[in-house]
């Protein structure tokens, strides 16, 4: 080893006059040689918890504070009032909070869709899992909308024919969950077979195109809703579900949703 040092030695022997420096130089060369030869010998890894046992960096905290306060002020400004506490577990096949969310999507998205296309939205389908919190009795703020819908999912309208609508209805009858719907009325019998399905009060028409509003997550097959992908056209509204909720809260000073007969099982 240390071929490099040998070269140095020859070099030094030819050029050196100060023999007392010989040793020092040798070491100097030896060390610089080492520097170039540094090799990875050991790796040690640890995962460190970031928790309340750690000190808070006060400079960072002070920097965040004005941003936080501005957000809080905005998020906590009162938009509306909820007459009760509503949860997505309040009903088997339809719930007050789910009905409210699907109706709010219809009310807020339909004028935009109609303005853009000339058509009306025929029905709305969201998913039960997309209701991310309860709606508590009392003041409703923007924060409420962020809690109900923290995700950035946007409203899309999908043009479907009867076969896809049938698949959608069968999906709902099999899922046996209170997936939020609006303008669709679905009645199941004791065995969860479909007794009646109506959109805006009419039977499903094989000659009609249905404009179904949902969100981009479900459109892309979320919650196994595979029936959206065979469609005539897709309309992206660039309108977030959360923004629609906020707009609806602003328009209504009291929110008083009810469970109704839109999705029922009849014994």
């Amino acid at each position, binding site marked *: 080893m240390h071929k490099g040092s040998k070269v140095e030695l020859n070099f030094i022997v030819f050029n050196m006059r100060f023999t007392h420096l010989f040793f020092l130089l040798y*070491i*100097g060369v030896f060390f610089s040689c080492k520097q170039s*030869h*540094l*090799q990875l010998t050991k790796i040690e890894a640890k995962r460190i918890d970031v*928790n309340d046992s750690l000190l808070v960096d006060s400079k960072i905290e002070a920097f965040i504070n004005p941003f936080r306060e501005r957000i809080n002020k905005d998020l906590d400004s009162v938009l509306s009032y909820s007459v009760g506490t509503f949860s997505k577990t309040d009903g088997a096949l339809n719930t007050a909070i789910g009905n409210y969310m699907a109706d709010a999507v219809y009310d807020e998205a339909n004028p935009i869709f109609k303005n853009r296309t000339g058509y009306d939205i025929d029905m709305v389908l969201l998913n039960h899992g997309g209701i991310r919190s309860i709606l508590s009795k009392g003041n409703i703020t923007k924060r409420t909308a962020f809690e109900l819908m923290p995700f950035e999912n946007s409203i899309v309208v999908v043009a479907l024919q009867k076969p896809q609508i049938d698949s959608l209805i069968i999906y709902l009858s099999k899922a046996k969950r209170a997936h939020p719907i609006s303008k669709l009325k679905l009645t199941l019998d004791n065995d969860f077979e479909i007794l009646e399905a109506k959109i805006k009060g009419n039977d499903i028409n094989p000659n009609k195109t249905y404009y179904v509003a949902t969100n981009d997550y479900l459109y892309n097959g979320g919650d196994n809703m595979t029936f959206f992908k065979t469609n005539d056209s897709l309309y992206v509204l660039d309108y977030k579900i959360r923004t629609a909720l906020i707009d609806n809260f602003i328009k209504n000073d009291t929110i008083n949703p009810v469970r109704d007969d839109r999705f029922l099982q009849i014994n």
Partner: protein
Amino acid sequence: MKRRDFIQKTTAGTALATLSSLGLQSFNTSIKTSKITILHTNDVHSHIDAFTAEDGRNANKGGIARRASLIESFKNENPNTLLFDAGDIFQGTPYFNYYGGELEFKLMSQLKYDAATIGNHDFDNSIEGLYAQLPHAKFEFLSANYDFSNTIMNTHVKPYKIFKKGGIKIGVFGLGIELNGLVDPKMFKETKYLNPIEITQDMTRILKEEQKCDLIICLSHLGYQYKNNDQKISDLKLAALTKNIDLIIGGHTHTFLPKPTIVKNSEGKNMLVNQVGCYGLYLGKIDFYFDSNKNKSTKGTSIIV
């Protein structure tokens, strides 16, 4: 062998310099050992504040002001420390909805992040939204497999960067996930996704063979592993199919690894893949110890995880 010749020549040069200046100075500052500390986060998703005590899953965890003090203490312990993020800095709390990522970048700059790669959610306000926040970032964005040349981000993202700490050359490059099917094309515009394996072969050739880096780190937003999709490239796959990477710092899949995974690369050499979940709940810390040949008793590197 070529490298050995090169080192030999360099050493001769050093000897000459030593002779002419009677260089006791360089004699005293010669480095025998070096320790490089790599700190890392991924998928912080705008989680600036700690989770509250009432939170159902992550009560009292996270918080960037705590992470700041932690990072500072590690930097005090070892000045040869680098701090990286593996993407998805944006999206997840109202801080992003309100400020578009400004605060995230400003705080990461104050924490002195050295580099980050780009995650799919970093396109959530479109490529213009990302571009608009760049002036707030005092750290480097690295992505070798996103070709931004037809976009507004052109020249603002580098494929790799070489850091020099404690006499060690550390080459770092970035990799992003396929955007098609994951991000709306109108958000990423004409960003082109290039094959991560081919790009990694280029990167490691440049960093190892041309630039002679002692340590090569990949910041990846490819995701740790896809059990149900054998075709999809992941960190574990990339690690096994390539060579000369010492560490992949991963993201995207929000995988909480209690310790890094040791993977055999295409040459059968051990390397590490790590990921620390999400939301700034954890900080990854990996120390690389370098030593001179003389002190190396056995061939190879001991990995303590």
